[in-house]
């Protein structure tokens, strides 16, 4: 028999950096890397938010801001979409929350490859810098739309067809390298570094969501990587992977035989799983928020885990529902519509289980819980419109209208962001050791929650009227009533309000970091390991000399007969608790 030692049990003293730079810049501590990831992601996210405000200004008051030319509008659309999806949400949920939470929630001291983890952040930062630099190259950033479809992405006439698109593709490729380094860490840590007693099925839903999402990312990003490289080659050395024979500006280009549809397949083979790369961590986190703040075990834990796995698997066979109007074989559309609707089943199960967890729970409407419940609303809403768009015959007229914009902002823009806010409020006391201001948090929630409805509900209506997406201005369009313009003004006012309301959030976080009251180590009475650390915020190495031992699952809330309404995972079974039967 070999005695089994793992990284998790490794109690050799960690390498403790002495200098400020070693501690906060070239740090290999997962918590510091998580903060670096998060701050960078939020930083670029703010750029994307400002861009959306500018677009909204143009849509409501065409021509008022003179620097928003049609070219600039396309560039804003593209950069906004790409930043939000990849550089903000993916980086924040996996690089930020994944990094912070995985070792803490499974009882490890750090990721298994800390150096690679550090590298992952710096490479991510490089990708962000390259992306931001594209604002300053000749011709500006690409305006091809976040989907970057060729041939238009690289032909004359599209803004940024020279430098911009190359910077974008380079940045994406760099991002994918960074993600792969981080992702290998996350999955390996979950599989190899769990502490004693932390079986797979004792992991909190948060970890399940992050774990499966990371696997999706590892398997989906290569498609984008390949597509980015092939398009770069088409653009620079004149290959014809995606470029058909084409006449541009009156002259035949030196391409022939390439297939634009091939790009679409590659892009969406990545693009659809990407939705779940963002959604699954959010699903996991929200499950834990709901369970903790409703003081009830999560309803149907096993179903929740299986649903995450099943959704992850199915997400690889639905990609072409983004291509119903691309002219592919109709049977193909039938297949993809079917698989898309099948995904709705495990997704609906999750929604029912969240609601059933709330049912007769001891609900504490603290700010994280407000956001969690807000998520249930926005997600149901976005999910239902997804059922519309999943059907070929319904999608064809709605495709490329504001209905689509309303749908995907609800389901993959607003919903994950709600969870991100909830999660930040939830874990802030642990991460900083301070408590935020409740009034400001509530104000932030209500303005954001009601605001996003004011923004996106009218968009569905605009979509039914036929307002196309990615249009700089509608001008005098006979088929659109005057009310479209009023709706656009209303949406913009709401959008600017929501944008400004985020200042409350940042003010709250920054002020509380310095002046907030000291937080209790476990203010919510939560069971999971990260709340049981000896120090708050957790010190380097997380656990002091001894690793925690796990005796129970993550959801022992309101157990009948227990002294308190929660039993931490580190509490050994009591005398009247049946130990494990052999």
């Amino acid at each position: 028999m070999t005695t089994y030692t793992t990284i998790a049990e490794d109690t050799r003293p960690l390498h403790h950096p002495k200098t400020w730079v070693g501690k906060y810049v070239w740090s290999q501590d997962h918590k510091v890397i998580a903060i670096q990831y998060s701050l960078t992601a939020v930083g670029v996210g703010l750029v994307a938010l400002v861009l959306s405000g500018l677009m909204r200004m143009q849509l409501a008051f065409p021509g008022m801001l003179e620097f928003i030319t049609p070219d600039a509008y396309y560039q804003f659309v593209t950069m906004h979409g790409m930043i939000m999806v990849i550089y903000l949400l993916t980086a924040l949920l996996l690089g930020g929350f994944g990094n912070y939470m995985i070792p803490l929630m499974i009882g490890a001291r750090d990721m298994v490859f800390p150096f690679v983890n550090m590298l992952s952040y710096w490479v991510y930062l490089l990708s962000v810098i390259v992306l931001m630099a594209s604002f300053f190259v000749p011709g500006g950033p690409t305006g091809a739309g976040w989907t970057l479809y060729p041939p238009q992405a690289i032909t004359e006439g599209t803004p940024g067809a020279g430098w911009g698109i190359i910077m974008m593709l380079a940045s994406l490729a760099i991002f994918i390298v960074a993600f792969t380094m981080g992702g290998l860490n996350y999955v390996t840590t979950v599989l190899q570094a769990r502490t004693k007693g932390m079986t797979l099925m004792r992991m909190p839903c948060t970890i399940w969501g992050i774990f499966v999402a990371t696997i999706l990312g590892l398997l989906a990003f290569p498609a984008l990587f390949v597509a980015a490289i092939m398009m770069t080659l088409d653009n620079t050395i004149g290959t014809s992977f995606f470029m058909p024979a084409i006449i541009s500006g009156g002259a035949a280009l030196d391409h022939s035989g390439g297939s634009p549809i091939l790009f679409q397949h590659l892009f969406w083979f990545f693009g659809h799983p990407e939705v779940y790369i963002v959604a699954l961590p959010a699903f996991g986190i929200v499950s834990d928020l709901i369970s903790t703040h409703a003081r009830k075990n999560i309803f149907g834990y096993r179903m929740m885990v299986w649903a995450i796995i099943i959704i992850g698997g199915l997400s690889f066979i639905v990609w072409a529902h983004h291509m119903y109007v691309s002219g592919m074989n109709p049977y193909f559309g039938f297949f993809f519509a079917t698989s898309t609707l099948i995904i709705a089943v495990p997704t609906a199960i999750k929604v029912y289980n969240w609601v059933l967890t709330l049912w007769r729970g001891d609900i504490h409407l603290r700010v994280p819980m407000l956001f969690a419940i807000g998520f249930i609303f926005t997600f149901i809403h976005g999910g239902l419109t997804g059922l519309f768009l999943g059907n070929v015959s319904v999608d064809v007229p709605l495709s490329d209208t504001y209905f689509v914009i309303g749908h995907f902002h609800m389901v993959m823009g607003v919903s994950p962001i709600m969870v991100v806010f909830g999660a930040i409020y939830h874990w802030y006391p642990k991460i900083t050791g301070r408590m935020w201001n409740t009034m400001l948090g509530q104000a932030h929630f209500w303005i954001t929650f009601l605001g996003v409805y004011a923004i996106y509900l009218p968009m569905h209506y605009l979509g039914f009227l036929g307002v196309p997406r990615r249009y700089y201005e509608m001008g005098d369009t006979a088929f659109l009533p005057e009310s479209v313009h009023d709706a656009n003004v209303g949406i913009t006012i709401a959008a600017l309000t929501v944008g400004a309301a985020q200042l409350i959030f940042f003010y709250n976080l920054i002020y509380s970091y310095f002046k907030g009251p000291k937080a209790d180590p476990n203010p919510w009475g939560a069971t999971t390991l990260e709340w049981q650390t000896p120090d708050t915020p957790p010190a380097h190495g997380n656990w002091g000399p001894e690793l925690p031992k796990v005796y129970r699952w993550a959801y022992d809330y309101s157990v009948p007969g227990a002294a308190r309404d929660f039993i931490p995972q580190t509490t050994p079974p009591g005398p009247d608790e049946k130990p494990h039967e052999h």
Partner: protein
Amino acid sequence: MKLLRELTKRPWLTKGLDSDPGPGADGIRGATAAATGMWFYVGVASVMFSLIVAAYVLRLGNYGADPAAAAAAKASLAWWTLAAICGIPPADDWAPMAEPFLLWINTGVLIVSSIAWQKARGDLRKRRMDSLRITLTAAGLFALVFLAGQLTVWRQLIGSGQFAAVGPAIAFFYLMTAMHGLHLLGGLFFWWRTTSKVLNGAKAEEIAAGVNLCAVYWHYLLLVWIVMFGLLLIT
């Protein structure tokens, strides 16, 4: 299936530590972190190479000059399922690539490199450290020779005007060889880490994982190369 049994446990019923002997109990006992990481990476790389192959097959269409070959390609199940269903029109600019003979030699060199890795594993098992030094060095050097050979093919092709833009097959050839070469370069980084330790007299235990994982990775890259070279040959 162990994993299935694990995933169907009812965690709310079982309390205590004894239900689980510790990390690695979930069907991955004994796998080291490095091995897990490597296998996941092999998964990532496999998706990437498969997608390149899929794109190649999709892009493949009419052979301008050779109708028989075109018919053969179109009769193949892979082409039919991928291209026909996806609605990608057959390309009529397809020109098969004339594979330089040097590629055969390179393939042989890569095979020798893989064999050397396998021998290194054997040496390690039998604790023959002297022999191990030689086989490890040889394994890496043959890989370097392979890379040099691939670069030579590139130079020959470019020299004869066969740049990537002349046709889809040749464009894919550059793409495939570049991606494969980069992966091999990455492998050589780990080869160097392991080999320098061995040359500095490290004990067998310290380098066992490195040697074994590198060897597996090399075999994997050999397989990738054979699949891609084969694809170029038959089309």
